[in-house]
C-alpha cells in the first residue's frame, strides 16, 4: 500500500503542476522514508506500524499537507533482517532522497541502519525499544517508544509493592524478549529482588511446560515474569494454568493488545502487565492529558482496520507527529535544521506519553508512560 500511496502522491503532484494551480502545492513533496518489519518474526509489530503510517500520511495530505507541501511516504519491508534494513535505509536516503527516516521496527534493524543514517546525515526516528539506540546519544538518531527498561521497572515496582522478593523469569530467546530479559535482570537487582529461576523459549515452541515445571519446582518463587511477544506469551500463559501454578503471572507490554487475551483465553485471567495509555484508553481517567489523544487514535485505527490496536501501532503515529511538527517549525526540510527541531520537541503528548527531547535525551519520554493493568473477565482493569 505504501507504493500505492506514493504513486498516488506523485500523480497528484504532477496533475497539480500541469494545471498550474496551487503554486506552493506544486513544490517538491516532503518525502518520508520508512523501513519496517512488515513480514518475518516481528511482523506483529511492523504490520500495525505500516498501517498507522499510511493512515496518517493520507490524512495529513487530505488536510493539505505540511507547509503547503504534500507528503510522500515510501515504505520498504525488511522482513526483520538487519542487513536488508541497512540496504533499504540506504535506498531511501540515496535513491528516494527522503528527508527523514522512520523505522527500524526492531532494535536490530534500527541499529543496522544507524551507521548509514549517521554517515548520510538523515534524521532517523526509530520505532524500537532498545536502549543502545539512544544511549550513547547519536546526533541523527531518535526514538519514540518506551524502553524495555521502563516496562521492566513498572513490573518490578508492582511486585515490590506486593511484597514479592523472589521471582522467576521466562523470556523469549530473540530480540524483544532477550533485551527485555536483560533489563529485567538489571532492574530487579537494583530493587533487591532476587531472580531464582531464569528460563527461555523460542518464539515458535509449541509447548513450554518443561521450562515452567522447572520454575514451579524452584523453591520460593513468588511471581513469574514473562517477557516476550507474539504467540509465545499466550502459550506460556496457558501452560502456566495447565500446571496449576498459582503465583502471580506478569507479562510485558509486548502483549498489551486484545489479541493476547483472545489467544490465551480464560488462562489470561488475573495476569498483570504494563500497558501504554493507548491500550487502555477507555479506562483512563478524564483528567489524564493523554486521554483525548489516545482515544481519538484508537477509534480512528480500529475503524480503519477493524482490528484491535496494540501499543506498537501508536509509535509511528508519534514519530510522524513529531516529524511533521518539526518540519513546520523548521519551515522546510533542510536536514540539519530538521534534526535540530526534532531535538527541540517539547511537551508533545502522544500515544506513548509526554515527550520532551534534548541534546542529551533523544527519547524524552516521561517515566509515567505505563499503566499497570490486570486482565479481568477478558478486559483490562487499570490498577494505577
Amino acid at each position, binding site marked *: *500500500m*505504501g*507504493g*500505492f500511496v506514493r504513486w498516488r502522491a506523485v500523480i497528484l503532484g504532477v496533475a497539480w503542476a500541469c494545471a498550474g494551480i496551487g503554486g506552493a502545492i506544486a513544490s517538491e513533496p516532503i518525502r518520508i522514508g520508512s523501513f519496517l518489519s*512488515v*513480514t518475518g518474526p516481528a511482523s506483529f509489530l511492523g504490520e500495525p506500524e505500516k498501517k498507522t503510517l499510511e493512515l496518517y500520511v493520507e490524512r495529513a495530505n487530505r488536510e493539505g499537507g505540511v507547509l503547503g507541501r504534500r507528503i510522500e511516504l515510501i*515504505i*520498504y*519491508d525488511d522482513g*526483520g*533482517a*538487519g*542487513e*536488508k534494513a*541497512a*540496504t*533499504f535505509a*540506504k*535506498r531511501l*536516503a*540515496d*535513491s528516494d532522497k527522503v528527508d527523514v527516516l522512520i523505522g527500524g521496527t526492531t*532494535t*536490530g534493524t534500527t*541499529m*543496522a541502519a*544507524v*551507521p*548509514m543514517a549517521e*554517515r*548520510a546525515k538523515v534524521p532517523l526516528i526509530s520505532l524500537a525499544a*532498545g536502549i*543502545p539506540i539512544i544511549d550513547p546519544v547519536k546526533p541523527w538518531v531518535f526514538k519514540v517508544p518506551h524502553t524495555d527498561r521502563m516496562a521492566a521497572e513498572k513490573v518490578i515496582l508492582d511486585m515490590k509493592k506486593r511484597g514479592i522478593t523472589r521471582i522467576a523469569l521466562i523470556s523469549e*530467546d*530473540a*530480540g524483544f524478549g*532477550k*533485551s527485555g530479559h*536483560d533489563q529485567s535482570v538489571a532492574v530487579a537487582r537494583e530493587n533487591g529482588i532476587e531472580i531464582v529461576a531464569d528460563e527461555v523459549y523460542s518464539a515458535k515452541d509449541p509447548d513450554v511446560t518443561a521450562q515452567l515445571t522447572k520454575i514451579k519446582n524452584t523453591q520460593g518463587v513468588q511471581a513469574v515474569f514473562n517477557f516476550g511477544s507474539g504467540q509465545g506469551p499466550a502459550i506460556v500463559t496457558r501452560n502456566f494454568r495447565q500446571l496449576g501454578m498459582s503465583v502471580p503471572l506478569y507479562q510485558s507490554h509486548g502483549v498489551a493488545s486484545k489479541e493476547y487475551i483472545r489467544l490465551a483465553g480464560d488462562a489470561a485471567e488475573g495476569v498483570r502487565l504494563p500497558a501504554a495509555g493507548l491500550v487502555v484508553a477507555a479506562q483512563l481517567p478524564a483528567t489524564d492529558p493523554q486521554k483525548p489523544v489516545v482515544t481519538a487514535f484508537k477509534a480512528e485505527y480500529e475503524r480503519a482496520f477493524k482490528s484491535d490496536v496494540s501499543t506498537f501501532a501508536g509509535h509511528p503515529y508519534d514519530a510522524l507527529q513529531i516529524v511533521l511538527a518539526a518540519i513546520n517549525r523548521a519551515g522546510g526540510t533542510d536536514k540539519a535544521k530538521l534534526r535540530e527541531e526534532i531535538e527541540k520537541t517539547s511537551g508533545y503528548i502522544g500515544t506513548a506519553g509526554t515527550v520532551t527531547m534534548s541534546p542529551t535525551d533523544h527519547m524524552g519520554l516521561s517515566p509515567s508512560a505505563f499503566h499497570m493493568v490486570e486482565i479481568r473477565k477478558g478486559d483490562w482493569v487499570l490498577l494505577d
Partner: protein
Amino acid sequence: MTLFRPRTGGILVLAAIIALVPLGLGNGYFYDVAVNAMFSAIVCIGLNLLIGYGGQISLGHAGFFALGAYGSAILTGRYEVPPLAALVLSAGAVALIAFVLGRPILRLKGHYLAMATLGIGIIIHIVLKTESGLTGGPDGLALGDFTLFGLSVSGERDWYWMAGGVLLLAVWLSLNLIDSPLGRALRAVHGSEAGAEAAGVDSSGTKVRVFVISAVFASVAGSLFAHKNGFITPDIGSFFHSAELVTMVVLGGMASTFGALVGAVILTLLPQVLASFEQYEAMILGAIMMGTMIFMPKGLLPSLAGLIRRWRGER
C-alpha cells in the same frame, strides 16, 4: 565452464563488467546493492565448488559467513586486532572448524548431509544469539571500518572496488581449482565415488578440502560484509540465509562458476526490484524461483548458453 571456455576470457569479461557497471550506478544505494551482490557471489562461488562440482549439499554455509563476520567484529572491536589480521584469523578458525567437522559430516550423503550441515548452521546461529556477552545477542554488534595497509575502506565506492577485486580473485581461484588435478578429482567424486576411489582419489579427503575452501570463501565474504555494513545481527547466520545461498547457486547454474555469480546477482537484485510490489513480493519471488527451475532446470546460465548454442547451430 560453459559459456566461457577460455577462462582468461571469462575473467577479462568479468573485469570489464566490474569496471563499467559504475557508469550506470546513480548513487550510493546502487553501489551498496552491487557490493552486496558481489559478496554473495563470493560465497556462492565457493559453495558452487562444493555443490556444483563436488555434488555435496550444504545447508549451513550462512553459519560460516556469520562466523567470519562475528570473528572480525569481535577481534577488531574487543581485542583491537587490525581488520585484515582479524579477517585472516577468522578465516583460519573457520577453516579449522570446517576441517574438523568435515570428516564425519561428509561421509553422509544427500538429504542426510543436508540435515547435518543444516544442524551445524543452526547451532552456530543459536550460539551467536545466546552468547550476548560476546556477540551482542539478537540486537547485534557494531564494528568499524576496514583498513588495508593504513588506508581506510569506507563509503560505497571504496567498497565497490574492494569487493570487485576480491570477487575477481575468488573467480580466478575457483577456475584454477576446477582445472587442477584436485578439481578433477573432485568432479570425479561427483561422477562416481567408487570409480574415483579405485583411481586413487581419497574421496573423503577431497570432499573435506573443498568443504574447507568453500567455508573460507564464506568466512572472508562475511568479514568484509560486516565491515561494509558496520553492524551485524545473528540473522546473517540463519537457516534462511543458507537456503538463499544454495538457491543462488542452483538458480544460476550448478557446476558453473559464472553461473553461481549470475545467481547471486539476480537473487540480490530481485528483492530490491520487487520491493515496490509490497505484499505481493513473496508470491512473485516464489513464482520466479519455481518458473526458472521448471523451465531452466539446469539453471540460468547453462540453460541460456545451451539456447545460444542451439540457435547458432541452426543458423
